[in-house]
């Protein structure tokens, strides 16, 4: 209704808002919100993007979240932002050149990626690796598990507001990287595992440094637990949050610490003995409730077990070669090259062409820090694989995020994501 007297005669009547005779509903903000929700509930749903660039998504993960106020009503993960076609590229590389490629998928557990692939090719070749190589592999795998869990602990605690944990964890992670640099020459993406064994024996002085690390690590873990376990904020944000029961997790294909936190003692290191694991004494930590706190406790306890495993490996490290003596697959030792024509020929053939793998297909699963990491390789005869597929645990575990978060608060969604520990390099491959 236009106010009389304000319009010029002849001008078209403008549409203006009409002031209605309003009535104030309720006496407080809470009552008013409740009344509006009753009138038009669907208007309260708000769909927002979390990510792709968000510090709490641990990578380039985008979550399409439907919110009703603070409560998550629906959630859709959208992935693929760092897809680089690694599986496709592997089909064009000879087997030994695939190893550095697959390392870069899950960039926190590169030794596990290598082990999944090398173990799979060794299965196709029916190649036995020497005992010292098995022990050295276990040593590096478990060091890598500590490294991966330390990064997880630091960044997850950071998500929940515990800033200092990030610095402490990265301090210790750096010590692991120093050890990797000493034994393999690289801090990350080491290309240390070869088909047939490992690239090089551990150097002099490595054992001393590693033992020093192992003797310090348990007390460091005690300190971390002392920081977090007495922290009221951390406890109230993780306890009884994000519970999904065990059967549902199994249906969703979840494995690793998430599944163990829900009370299922499933660890491929125990149930499917491979490498040197049958010789070693270690326990599988499991949780009872399956909330965020259990997930944290299980991972921290796994670090302690990894330290125990490493100490046993150092004690029982067998003497002998660290790589298999199959000249059709493994490069000959460097010192043979100037004196042996045959070694030179093998070296030339292996470097220029690579080794051939007889036709067949195999699936090799190991227990990475995030769950079952499987590698499926189809060989069709030549020196390049016909198909390399990685079953990445982060990719499969991400499906459980919806069940963990729907019905909870947005803040709990951050907590669930942190405790899920997805690595986007592994999800997108």
């Amino acid at each position, binding site marked *: 209704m236009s106010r009389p007297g304000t319009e010029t005669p002849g001008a078209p009547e403008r549409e203006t808002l009409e002031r209605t005779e309003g009535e104030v509903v309720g006496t407080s903000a809470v009552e008013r919100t409740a009344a509006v929700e009753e009138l038009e509930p669907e208007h309260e749903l708000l769909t927002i993007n979390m990510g792709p660039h968000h510090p709490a998504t641990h990578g380039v993960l985008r979550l399409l979240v439907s919110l009703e106020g603070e409560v998550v009503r629906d959630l859709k993960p959208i*992935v*693929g932002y760092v*897809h680089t*076609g690694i*599986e*496709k*590229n592997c*089909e*064009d590389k000879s087997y030994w050149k695939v190893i550095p490629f697959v390392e870069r998928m899950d960039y926190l557990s590169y030794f596990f990626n290598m082990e999944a692939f090398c173990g799979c090719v060794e*299965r*196709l070749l*029916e190649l036995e690796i020497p005992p010292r190589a098995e022990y050295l592999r276990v040593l590096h795998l478990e060091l890598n598990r500590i490294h991966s869990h330390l990064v997880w602990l630091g960044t997850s605690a950071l998500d929940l507001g515990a800033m200092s944990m990030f610095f402490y964890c990265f301090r210790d992670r750096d010590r692991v990287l120093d050890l990797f640099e000493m034994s393999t020459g690289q801090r990350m993406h080491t290309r240390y595992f070869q088909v047939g064994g490992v690239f090089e024996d551990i150097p002099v002085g490595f054992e001393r440094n590693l033992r020093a690390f192992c003797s310090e690590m348990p007390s460091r873990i005690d300190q971390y637990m002392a920081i977090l376990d007495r922290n009221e904020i951390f406890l109230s944000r993780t306890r009884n949050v994000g519970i999904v029961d065990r059967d549902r997790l*199994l*249906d*969703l*294909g*979840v494995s690793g610490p998430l599944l163990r936190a829900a009370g299922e003692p*499933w660890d491929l290191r125990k*149930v*499917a003995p491979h490498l040197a694991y049958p010789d070693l004494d270690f326990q599988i930590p499991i949780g009872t409730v399956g909330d965020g706190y259990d997930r944290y406790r299980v991972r921290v306890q796994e670090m302690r077990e990894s330290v125990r495993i490493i100490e046993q490996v150092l004690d029982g490290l067998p003497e002998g070669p660290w790589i298999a003596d199959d000249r059709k697959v493994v490069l000959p030792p460097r010192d043979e090259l100037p004196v042996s024509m045959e070694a030179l020929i093998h070296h030339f053939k292996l470097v220029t062409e690579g080794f051939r793998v007889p036709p*067949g*297909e*195999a*699936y090799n*699963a190991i227990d990475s820090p995030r769950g*079952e990491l*499987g590698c*499926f390789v*189809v060989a*069709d005869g030549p020196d390049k694989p*016909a*198909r390399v*597929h990685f*079953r990445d645990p982060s*990719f*499969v575990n*991400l*499906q459980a995020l919806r069940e963990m978060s729907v019905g909870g608060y947005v803040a709990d969604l951050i907590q669930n994501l942190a405790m899920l520990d997805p690595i986007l390099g592994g999800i*997108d*491959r």
Partner: protein
Amino acid sequence: MPDAPGLELIAQELNDASEGSVLGTYHEHGQACLIVDSDRVLDVLGWLRHTPGQEYRFLASLHGVDYLPAEPRFGVVYELLNMPRVERLRVRAALDDPAGSADEGAPDRPRPRSGEDDPQTLLPAIDSCVSLFPTAEFQEREVYDFFGIVFRGHPDLRRILMPEDYVGWPQRRDFPLGGEPVIFTHNEREVPRWFE
């Protein structure tokens, strides 16, 4: 893993339960595999999941394979796991390529999209097993994304890792590696249809 006679036994029982569902078996490198008819894959998976004594309840992995010169061309591989017995069983559904081997999966742009616009008759199709194994949801989307295999009955069959408007099925063996020019500022006008 079931050993070779155990695998034959499973194949025999499956063929009794659902006539002609198992096309072949092989046992290599200590791993057992059933090759099954793609139309019966739900029967087979359901039987393996629910029959007492089998109970392969955990789908560890689902992936596609393109065996290009071979017929049938595609395989959808299910890595099943019986957790209490720690036995793995691979089930491979064999799929023919309905488009023939001449012209599919190729990335040249002007051709009509062979997944979204066309009726999906030119794509191989198989029943989705999301109802049996909810974990298959993302993995079936991945197989669709890379191999153009349609999963009938999937709740949300879209590309997952490639961009939504991508044309072609990149992990097929006849899809060339490096077939896409990288767009920079200096050549963006030369790349065909860069603006779409």
